[in-house]
């Protein structure tokens, strides 16, 4: 259980995190979503007790990380954004050190190390010096160290950054299996990751929580603004005007006289009417499709008003392609 209340962090005049509040329940996977520079990492650093907040409060398993640091930190496993490890140590030595830091000894520590080596697919590099490992392996060693002591709460800051697609799938699989057993807060700017893994999403922009809910509920509340695309076989000069008159259509954007994009009024689905219109007018329909607002649309809309292009540019191109799938 993580409770965040009015958490604020200022650096001089700049407010990196501005009074955010949310909670992660036991056994829940919550994704913290936001463009680069939104304050995700600063928020996570305060939640894990690395950075003292300017004001506000964080409680993990009911304990304050700054009032009861040693005991409260035992409950938290943390994978920082930049996974930093001691380059001169071997993987197994590093994990042994982390186990001792967490107060584990003897057989319990050895068993735990064996388990995380297997879980994180790093058995093959256990004897290797960390400085010689690739980024993907280092990321997994960091994750292994974070889950070593079986913390009740796991905080992962961009856990799949810098991994190749195969590793991303493996790590996501691991996160999913971890999620059932413990409370998990995950920060990312990769949208499909959120849809795949998270029970709930907190969208952060410029240090504030701009939306919160399950991926479904977020999508539902924005579905009203679905877009219908329509393509005709032959060009019709009068089509734009007729389409705009159909009930439920809020606006028509014409690309020439054959292709149209219709913005729908909230809650309405004008596809049936559009089909009838086409039949009446003897238009040959090549395409009639409704595109539901994807999490990406919501994300871009919520984080785009003034800061504009910067926020939109932060969405990974590959991710954008996947999330923006046309439905129906």
């Amino acid at each position, binding site marked *: 259980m993580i409770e965040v209340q009015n958490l604020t962090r200022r*650096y001089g005049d700049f407010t990196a995190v501005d009074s955010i509040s949310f909670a992660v329940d036991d056994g829940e996977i919550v994704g913290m979503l936001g463009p680069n520079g939104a304050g995700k990492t600063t928020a996570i*650093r305060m939640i*894990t*007790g*690395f*950075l*003292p907040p300017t004001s506000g409060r964080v409680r993990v398993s009911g304990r304050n990380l700054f009032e009861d*640091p*040693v*005991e409260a*930190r*035992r409950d*938290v496993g*943390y994978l*920082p954004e*930049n996974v*930093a*490890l*001691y*380059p*001169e*140590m071997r993987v197994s*030595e590093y994990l042994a*050190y*982390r186990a*001792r*830091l*967490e*107060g584990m*000894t003897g057989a319990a520590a050895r068993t735990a190390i064996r388990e995380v080596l297997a879980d994180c697919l790093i058995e093959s590099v256990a004897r290797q010096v960390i400085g010689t490992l690739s980024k993907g392996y280092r990321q997994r060693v960091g994750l292994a*160290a974070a889950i070593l002591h079986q913390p009740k709460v796991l905080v992962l800051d961009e856990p799949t950054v810098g991994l190749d697609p195969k590793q991303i799938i493996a790590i996501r699989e691991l996160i999913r299996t971890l999620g059932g057993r413990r409370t998990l807060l995950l920060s990312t700017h990769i949208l499909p990751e959120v849809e795949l893994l998270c029970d709930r999403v907190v969208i952060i922009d410029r240090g504030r929580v701009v939306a919160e809910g399950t991926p479904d509920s977020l999508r539902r509340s924005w579905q009203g603004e679905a877009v219908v695309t329509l393509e005709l076989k032959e060009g019709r000069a009068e089509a734009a005007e007729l389409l705009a008159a159909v009930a439920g259509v809020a606006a028509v954007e014409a690309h020439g006289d054959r292709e149209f994009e219709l913005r729908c009024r909230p809650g309405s689905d004008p596809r049936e009417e559009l089909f009838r219109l086409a039949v009446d007018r003897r238009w040959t329909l090549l395409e009639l499709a409704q595109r539901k607002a994807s999490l990406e649309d919501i994300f871009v809309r919520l984080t785009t008003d003034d800061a504009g292009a910067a926020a939109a540019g932060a969405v990974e191109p590959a991710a954008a392609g996947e999330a923006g799938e046309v439905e129906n």
Partner: protein
Amino acid sequence: MNAVWATITRELRAYFLSPLAYIVAALLLLVNGFVFWFIVSALNNPQFGGQIAPLGFFFNGLFFWLVLLFVAPALAMRLISEERRSGTIEMLLTAPITEAQVVVSKFLSAWIFYAFLWLPTVTYALILEYYHEVDWGPVAASYLGVLTVGALFLSVGVLATALTRSQLVAAAITFALLIPLFSFGFLEGLVNAELPKQVFSYLSLPQHMEDFSRGIVETRHLAYHLSATVFFLFLASRALAARKWR
């Protein structure tokens, strides 16, 4: 405590794997070997015979202080600065270990390594013992001085390394703090009033080492070294707790 011990052993391992530690060790042995050779030559030279106090020369000479002023920054500069530069500090400070425990572990590992560096010089006394009876009391007292003055110097280094992410800046800060700390005693000759004279004399590190090399273990000296060490380590742990970075 397990966390402290784990961190000390990790740090010691890092020392033994870093080239810098070997360079420092080589430097220390080179200079001390030279000083020892000089002392033996002087003792064998009828012109100097009996004129020099071997222990005073070895433990309170120009070379002793020069080496110490470089060894302490070199050993301490990596301790916390490197963790901040590489980012491993984030892991360390979110682990169940307090800032004070981190500072103490770092300091103790540096101190143990420092003591280890001095260990080979004991053979000099053993070599002398082979040819002539050695008065072990003053030798032991001198090594006690080496350890407590070293603790003081290293604690200044730990404070400096807690203040910056650059090892070079940490070494420079250490050096800049050690120079006045070391030179306080020289002010004694510059003042006439009784009280300041006494104060400077009390704070004079060369005076302390002089006493130790004569076999005098003065509790006031030890109290000064240890309380100053604790003071600098306390400042270091406050600096670390303040997290005034980024």
